[in-house]
């Protein structure tokens, strides 16, 4: 099996001394800054983060959940710059608070999938043998089923489990946690394979062989020598994964398996207007635009990072 997304950093990277490593990061940064779209994406992302965090200082979460039946489906106005939804909630406030959740879903689920993917890849690649076979068969098994099919199967089973979750004084629909877990736990496979093949390449190189001969403990080798070399693909996968998770949440909402009220997400605000596209365009336009802009920004950043962190990229 040849994995084409893997770039072999090669021996030259591994043998660079620490000082040179620092300049390598600087070099990457410089390359990133030359990537115009990546810079634009970063600026856009900062603006979006400012919007969802800064906005929260002006509009409270209670306000975002406050219903007012007399103000049902009001078009944008001074009082409600983004208009109101089917039960008269302010869409601007919901877009702000829902944006936090959408971004959190992206970040946390990616953290989970990075953690699982990295550990599985490292363990599998480093130890080899039956552990490798078992983990890789399982990884392949999960990869052999379309992602959306797996997501639907699992979210269908989990939505029934109900619990109230109170995190840092905020109340969440328990479905939020399940969606995060499901997206996180079903997206680590490709990364695991990338990390594994990196480890396999690195294992053969002199410095690891040398460290082993010198009697270094296996755990130490993994953390000191192998892991740092996997950081580039991990960062790129993570960035793109966030965008993917945000879109996935919107898909699940559309199919009726997403995050449930009162917790707002861009996905469920968007699908709240699904049956009335032409009558109430403001309900879907703003959250839709936010999703697109966010994912776009993330993809630009990811693309820039890929170019910047890939030592073989020439330009």
């Amino acid at each position, binding site marked *: 099996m040849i994995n084409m997304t893997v770039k072999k950093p090669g021996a030259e990277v591994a043998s660079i001394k620490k000082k040179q490593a620092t300049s390598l990061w600087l070099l990457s940064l410089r390359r990133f800054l030359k990537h115009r779209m990546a810079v634009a994406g970063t600026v856009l992302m900062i603006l979006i983060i400012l919007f969802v965090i800064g906005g929260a200082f002006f509009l409270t979460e209670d306000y975002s959940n406050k219903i007012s039946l007399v103000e049902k489906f009001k078009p944008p106005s001074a009082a409600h710059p983004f208009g109101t939804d089917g039960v008269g909630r302010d869409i601007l406030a919901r877009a702000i608070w829902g944006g936090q959740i959408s971004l959190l879903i992206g970040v946390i689920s990616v953290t989970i999938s990075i953690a699982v993917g990295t550990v599985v890849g490292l363990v599998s690649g480093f130890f080899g043998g039956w552990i490798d076979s078992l983990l890789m068969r399982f990884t392949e098994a999960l990869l052999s089923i379309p992602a959306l099919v797996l997501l639907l199967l699992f979210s269908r089973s989990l939505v029934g489990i109900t619990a109230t979750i109170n995190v840092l004084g905020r109340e969440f629909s328990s479905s939020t946690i399940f969606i995060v877990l499901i997206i996180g736990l079903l997206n680590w496979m490709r990364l695991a394979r990338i990390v594994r093949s990196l480890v396999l390449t690195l294992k053969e190189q002199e410095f690891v062989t040398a460290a082993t001969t010198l009697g270094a403990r296996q755990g130490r080798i993994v953390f000191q020598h192998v892991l740092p070399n996997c950081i580039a693909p991990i960062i790129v996968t993570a960035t793109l994964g966030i965008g993917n998770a945000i879109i996935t949440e919107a898909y699940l909402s559309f199919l009726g398996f997403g995050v449930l*009220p009162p917790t707002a997400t861009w996905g469920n605000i968007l699908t709240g207007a699904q049956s009335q596209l032409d009558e109430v365009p403001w309900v879907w336009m703003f959250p839709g635009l936010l999703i697109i802009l966010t994912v776009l920004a993330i993809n630009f950043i990811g693309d820039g990072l890929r170019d910047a962190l890939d030592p073989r990229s020439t330009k």
Partner: protein
Amino acid sequence: MLGNGKRLLSMSLVLVFMLGLLVSAAHAQDETVLVFGWEQEPDQLGDGSTSTFSQLLGDFFSRKAYGWNSKYEALSDMMAEIPSVGNGMVTTNADGNTVVTHKLKEGLKWSDGEPITADDCLFGHKLFTDTSTGTIFRSDYPSVVASMEKVDDLTIVQTFNKAYPDFLGSDNITVMPQCRYPAHVLQPLMDANGGTVDGLPFFTSGEGYVGYGPYVLESWTKGDNITFVVNSNWVGQAPAFTKVVAKFILESAQMQNALETGEIDVAFNWQNDMLAGYQAIGEAEVFNTAGVYADALWFNIDETGNNHPALRDVLVRKAIIQAIDRASITTAIAGDGVPVPGAFDSSVWWPDGLEVLGYDVAAANALLDESGWVDSNGDGTRDKDGMELILKFFTTPRQSRIDYQLAIQAALQEVGIYTQIFQVPGPAVLFASITNRGIMAASDYDLAIYASSNDPISPNVDPNSFGCVGLPSPENPSGSNFSHYCDPAFDELTPLIAAEVDPDKRHELKHQSVQLMNDAQFWAGLYARVTWYAVRTDRVNTEGLKDGLGTLASNWFQSIEFWTPAG
């Protein structure tokens, strides 16, 4: 890729070939087609299906022995007379059991031209009493119909095993003779299939379907449409539309788009929130009919379960109902003029002066104070003996219900009741049995919004849903008394109502029963679910159309043969 390419190529060739065939065949322009948008594909045909959308199709091609019009009067396309005590067709035998004579109309034919006879009804009787004939939803038939005898080719006599006033059955009860299946076709098929109807293509794909209705099944393209053409052997009103198609469209916004562009002629059963969209379509006439379903707020009044103890106090339940402005919420969410039902049962069974609680916040606050729930710690939520009044409030993920849930949550907050809201899938989680961790069966909820249907034809009470015997428990996993309403006085009335043959006395008993249930205040109606229709006036003549539509759970198209094209 090569294999795929070949497959595509051969597929294209087949298509081109089909095109050639179709172009050469002259277009039948005298055909008048009526296209329904059908939001759910039937799983199968016949009584092995529970899908409403399968039952609705039955009126096109497989009529039942009896039906009911919108005034709830019995009618029949198959029987010569409606049996009643008055015309002597309903009698009581020496054992006190009800005996009913049914007379088939003369000259009825199956869609294959064979005559319909009493033998077909006997065949249906066997299907419905012998469980080895396969998986059919038999309702009460096997438990109350003792026997059926053939008197002559067109007459049968059905004997019940007790005094049974609902001898024609009702919306929820099937006991009427089952003469809708052709014995001469099905019996040989069953014999070849190990004696059962399970998996017979006759039902699963409609292959070789023979029935009795104004239309006959022409084709069923799974996932796409089911098509019917006029049944030339039908003796009733000759349909004006020569072809009826049910086009399966699952997505509600697409249903509206399809009607707007004229890809379908009729869209029905859409939700209230689509009203503005359908009204905006110039060519469509939009109207609704009454229905038997109502969405309501249900209370869990279990004396011992995991529910909040406050709900065991009827004063608290009254307070909750009075704290909610149901009329205004319904106007805002469900639309103008949608009625708020007053009691679980159809209004035909209400006693005079049945008290329906209205909106009164002051009264709600007073009742809560009276019952001892006051906000003693000033946190905004009422409490009593150190316990906060926090209720677990469930519904299913349907937009209008979620909207109601949010509105009710806000209203209860005003009187110091805090609710945690949950949306869970109905059948799989909320209504699931206790062995499948069903939330309501496990008594793990306080309030819930869901729909139920009432029965305007029969006053019978299902003890499994409203009696002490229906309390769900590990020993009684099929119990569906999810409100845990258990009143011995009410339970005493239930069998009396079921057996009372005198209509006036029966009404009197039912009134008492309705009153008891109303007094318990564990049910608050939110909105009566009307059935919405949008019909394209350039395709269908909508004059008088509405009057012919059935208003029970699944008889909406029982007069489909009277529909006429526009112009």
